[in-house]
């Protein structure tokens, strides 16, 4: 099945009858709207002409100071000069890739990996090489082997891209020891580590995991975002980068957009200065924890034997593996016909892996809808098992297709 067919199915997923476990939209409804109304009103009244003007290419200096408080939560200490504010951390990904990579350069990514990053690497004609994960995330032995194999083939590795906390789409988290190992391998190999951490503050248990960047200011570029902790529509993210890299990022940012939206930045800045943002993050956590629990309970109760899934300790996603012989891409139309949507696993790889996998998101639907969605999905999987049993085939091979994922505005 081609990517365009899968995208056509996502068009159906936007209908209210369909329970969409496919999207990645944060539940911004959990943000009290009056908090932002006051913030924006005060901003325009008191600093309107500044907010509506161009700003610095590196981002508003007050906001950069405030970002230090936010990244302090994951153990990072830095200087405001180390920070580049971007239009969502997606833009930071784009800028870092532009600065680091030439066509044909290798980027090592997890198996599976964030589809938005794969899209960027592909756009800059990088060679993406997947490295295996286990339930602790990126697997050190596999990483060492991948570095050796790529280098033996004469190619140059420019970045190791990792999402250590509450991985999208895999739903796993690197423990402290694992993070130390990954960092040691990157250092030893002299390869920059690109740490993408949009969900770091959205853990359901204990303190937020300590960022890898907290233990290395020179070899790690850290990407953060307000999309999940305030609101995705504001499009404010940032990179924390070592001096030499940061200047290049600023130049690249100026070339791309002159400056990130001053209006959005000052809205975030005003919000951080005047609203109880830590409390708000707690209430986001509660919302997502309740939904994760609803999903995991339903999966436990309803999924047919042979189906497995990851248990996320934070973030938005669980990664499900179908029983042997099933193909999540071939099954997608049947799921849509039964009014439930997911993202087939092949979209998170560049090399055709992931046929037995799917990403399930619990961030947007209400808990009751999640349970209903899982119930429908279980029925779909059961019929598919019967179909595959009848024909002894999983269906037409799905080609590698990173574009077979929904647009960002799908629930």
């Amino acid at each position, binding site marked *: *099945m*081609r*990517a*365009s*067919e899968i*995208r*056509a*199915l996502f*068009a*159906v997923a936007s*209908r*209210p*009858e*369909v329970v969409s476990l496919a999207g990645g939209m944060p539940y911004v409804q959990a943000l009290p709207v009056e908090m932002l109304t006051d913030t924006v009103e005060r901003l325009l009244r008191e600093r309107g002409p500044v907010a509506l003007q161009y700003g610095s290419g590196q981002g508003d200096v007050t906001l950069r100071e405030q970002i230090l408080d936010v990244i302090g939560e994951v153990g990072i200490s830095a200087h405001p000069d180390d920070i580049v504010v971007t239009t969502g951390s997606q833009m930071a990904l784009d800028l870092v890739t532009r600065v680091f990579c030439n066509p044909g350069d290798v980027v090592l990514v997890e198996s599976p990996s964030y589809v938005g990053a794969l899209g960027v690497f592909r756009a800059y004609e990088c060679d993406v090489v997947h490295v295996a994960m286990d339930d602790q995330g990126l697997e050190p032995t596999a990483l060492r082997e991948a570095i050796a194999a790529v280098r033996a083939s004469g190619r140059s590795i420019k970045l190791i891209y990792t999402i250590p906390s509450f991985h999208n789409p895999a739903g796993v988290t690197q423990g402290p020891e694992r993070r130390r190992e990954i960092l040691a391998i990157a250092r030893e190999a002299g390869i920059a580590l690109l740490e993408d951490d949009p969900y770091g503050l959205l853990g359901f248990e204990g303190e937020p995991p300590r960022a890898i960047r907290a233990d290395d200011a020179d070899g790690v570029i850290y990407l953060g975002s307000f999309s999940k902790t305030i609101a995705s529509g504001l499009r404010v993210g940032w990179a924390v980068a070592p001096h030499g890299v940061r200047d290049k990022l600023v130049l690249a940012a100026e070339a791309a957009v002159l400056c990130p939206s001053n209006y959005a930045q000052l809205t975030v800045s005003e919000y951080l200065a005047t609203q109880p943002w830590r409390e708000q993050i707690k209430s986001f956590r509660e919302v997502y924890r309740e939904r994760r629990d609803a999903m995991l309970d339903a999966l436990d109760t309803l999924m047919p034997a042979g189906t497995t899934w990851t248990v996320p300790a934070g973030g938005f996603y669980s990664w499900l593996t179908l029983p042997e012989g099933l193909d999540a891409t*071939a*099954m*997608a*139309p*049947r799921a*849509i*016909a039964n*009014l439930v949507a997911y993202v087939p696993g092949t979209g998170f790889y560049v090399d055709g892996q992931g046929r037995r996998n799917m990403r399930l998101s619990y961030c947007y639907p209400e808990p009751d809808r999640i349970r209903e969605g899982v119930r429908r999905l279980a029925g779909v999987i059961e019929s598919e098992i*019967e*179909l*595959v049993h*009848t*024909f*002894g*085939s*999983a*269906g*037409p*091979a799905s080609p590698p297709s990173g574009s077979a994922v929904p647009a960002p505005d799908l629930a």
Partner: protein
Amino acid sequence: MHVLVLAGGLSAERDVSLRSGRRVAEALRGSRPGWEVTEHDVDGSLLDRLRNHRPDCIVPLLHGAAGEDGALRDVLDAFGIPFVGSTAAASRLAFDKPVSKELARTGGIHTPDSVSMPQSTFRELGAGAVLAAVVGKLGLPLVVKPTRGGSALGASIVRTEADLPAAMVGAFAYGDVVMLERLVTGTEVSVSVFEGDGELLALSAVEIVPEGELYDYAARYTAGTTEFFCPARLSDDAALAAQATALNMHALLGLRDLSRTDLIVDADGVAWFLEVNVAPGMTETSLFPQALLAAELSPGEIAAGLVEAAIARGA
């Protein structure tokens, strides 16, 4: 004058339908600036809308089930609102490929041999034995497709028996009954038919040359992936035969206003009927609009004419 264009729906062809709807609504607005032309999805709010803001005419542009199988048209009938296109009963005949093919056969129209079976047949009798029997009867290569639904979703060409099971699973993902049809090679064409001034007209056949071997979903809706020739590169006799087949199918099934018939013209100039669509696609890459443009007809004028005729006809 208030015209409601229905597009979207819950089928896998929702996105195509939305694009068709937008395009037809724009064309109508362009040709009849005085009309109020609105687009609406088929959802829980539709019937309230019909009750509270009753349109003078409806243009159903839903593809796939509900839109083309007659169900929605029955509802429109119940509301007594005139609509463009075939009746519910005729749509049902057209939408079910085995039924329309059988009617074609009885009308003396060529159509490739085929068999259609639900999943339960394969489960109960054993898929291997059933497929072997089908291949024994029809030979290879075969086209495997769901018996209902369009845009070639779930369709594939099978050249070896080993590839059949995967194709069957792919087709059953889109429907409960699957057709295995002998592949006829030749020129793939599509003939659009519409009624104007009380007369049934067949436009020139459009020839389809997809990049790959199948005119599949991606080939249909990705600009530049398929080469079209209008008129098709056929002999005069073959072109006439294709048009005659489309006109005959339209009449045989009792269709109304417009339809599009998909055919293969073989090396001997014989036109083989594959399927007929009562709600042909109207997107920027679709065949019906291409045929109209090639005939220097304005899609907006034709659509407006069909709306006017539907209103004159009444519900």
